[in-house]
């Protein structure tokens, strides 16, 4: 072959460049990802799943949940609110200044300018940061999804189609295990017009023995089996519910900053 060396070299460079881009760069970028500190708190995130939750991801995967649900919140922008924490020594001047200013939904620059004016007037203020976007205004999460959300997930179940809602923080939105199980058993028993298929095969409908099972679901009458029967989740259903309850991407992180609604009570601002 003529120019064999050149062809080999060109192929090597082409494959090597894509290997660098698709394998090496992501590993350099995120290969060392670890649990990180939650902003302004002594908590770490994400917590390592334990027990049933470790197995739930595989049930999630096997049942194809990711075909209709995503685990990624999009964020379009970030805005700030300026909150007056202390009127200072001249409350009248500060309050008249504050009433003349816009304090909410500001860009960072505008918020800094407002905070500066309040400081000059002798007051003290704090700037609260929050994420904005269509997903967030629909109530799906509070910030964009980041790699840390998936630290213990393998394979990551990002999803690409939303026949159902995003599940990044479903464990926060629906923290009751009975709700989760009921939703899997009979989706329309908890969400009226849900288009989700029923996952009845993850449950066992059986005759009540000497005593009802402690695990039995509390099913509304319309969806309940015949009298004398009970609905008991299989291990798979329990694992899936535990996994769903563990999806709690609602904490502020360095790479996804925002001010959580509850400000720690232990702050010098309260003292002064």
């Amino acid at each position, binding site marked *: 072959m003529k120019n064999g060396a050149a062809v080999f070299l060109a192929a090597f460079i082409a494959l090597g460049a894509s290997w660098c881009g698709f394998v090496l760069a992501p590993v350099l970028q995120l290969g060392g990802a670890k649990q990180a500190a939650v902003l302004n708190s002594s908590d770490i995130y994400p917590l390592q799943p334990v027990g049933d939750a470790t197995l739930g991801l595989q049930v999630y995967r096997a049942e194809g949940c990711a075909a209709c649900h995503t685990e990624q919140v999009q*964020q379009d922008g*970030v805005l700030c609110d300026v909150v007056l924490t202390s009127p200072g020594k001249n409350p009248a001047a500060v309050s008249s200044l504050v009433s003349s200013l816009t304090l909410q939904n500001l860009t960072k620059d505008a918020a800094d300018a407002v905070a500066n004016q309040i400081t000059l007037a002798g007051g003290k203020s704090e700037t609260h940061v929050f994420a904005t976007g269509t997903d967030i205004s629909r109530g799906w999460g509070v910030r964009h999804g*980041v790699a840390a959300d998936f630290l213990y997930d393998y394979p990551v179940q990002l999803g690409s189609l939303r026949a159902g809602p995003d599940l990044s923080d479903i464990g926060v939105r629906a923290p009751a295990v009975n709700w989760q199980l009921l939703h899997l058993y009979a989706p329309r028993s908890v969400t009226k017009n849900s288009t989700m298929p029923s996952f009845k095969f993850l449950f066992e409908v059986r005759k009540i023995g000497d005593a009802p099972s402690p695990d039995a679901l509390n099913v509304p009458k319309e969806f309940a089996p015949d009298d004398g029967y009970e609905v008991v989740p299989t291990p798979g259903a329990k694992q899936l519910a535990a996994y769903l309850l563990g999806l709690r991407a609602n904490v502020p992180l360095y*790479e996804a900053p925002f001010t959580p609604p509850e400000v*720690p009570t*232990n*702050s*010098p601002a309260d003292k002064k």
Partner: protein
Amino acid sequence: MNDESKSCSVASDGEPTATHSTVPVWIFALTLALLFLGGIYFDQYSGWFDANVYGPYVSANEVELYQPKSGAAALLAQGRGLYEKNCGICHQPDGMGKPGLFPPLAGSEWVNAKGINRLAQIPLEGLTGTIEVKGQQMTFPAGMVAIGAVLSDNDLAAVLSYIRGSWGNKAEPVDADDLKAIRAKIGAHPQPVSPDQLMKLPE
């Protein structure tokens, strides 16, 4: 057969060979222009492949800019770093200590005291003897050294504020000026104190 012989004769005219010719200048210029535009786009939107930069942020500086900052948060963050470096080895990063050896700070009545007169003595002077925490007798095998004496007032205030405001503790943060006064009282030659001596001090 005829056709075949014809094609053969065509082939016998000579094997086609690759020849060299110069690349048109406009392709070269276009490539450079695209690379230039790509470079500008990369610089503005890539965040330089920083793992902490996600949209809508475009650079590490911008992410830093939006960190919610308050005086309290900054103090706690500073305190956490210092705590984990200086105190966490014995008292543990979660403030739980080691049963019977290193007293827990989480929920400790010494840490959550109203004032810091007793609490501040411990890192500034060290501690000997057996201390009762949460109804349990605890003793450091070799006593606690005056590990806080080398920290500045501000740093020690941050550490004490951190332990008083973490792991469920909800005591007031510590003022550096108060520590300065306590340090001045102790003087240049701190001696490890015993819990009995501490109890004689006002809270």
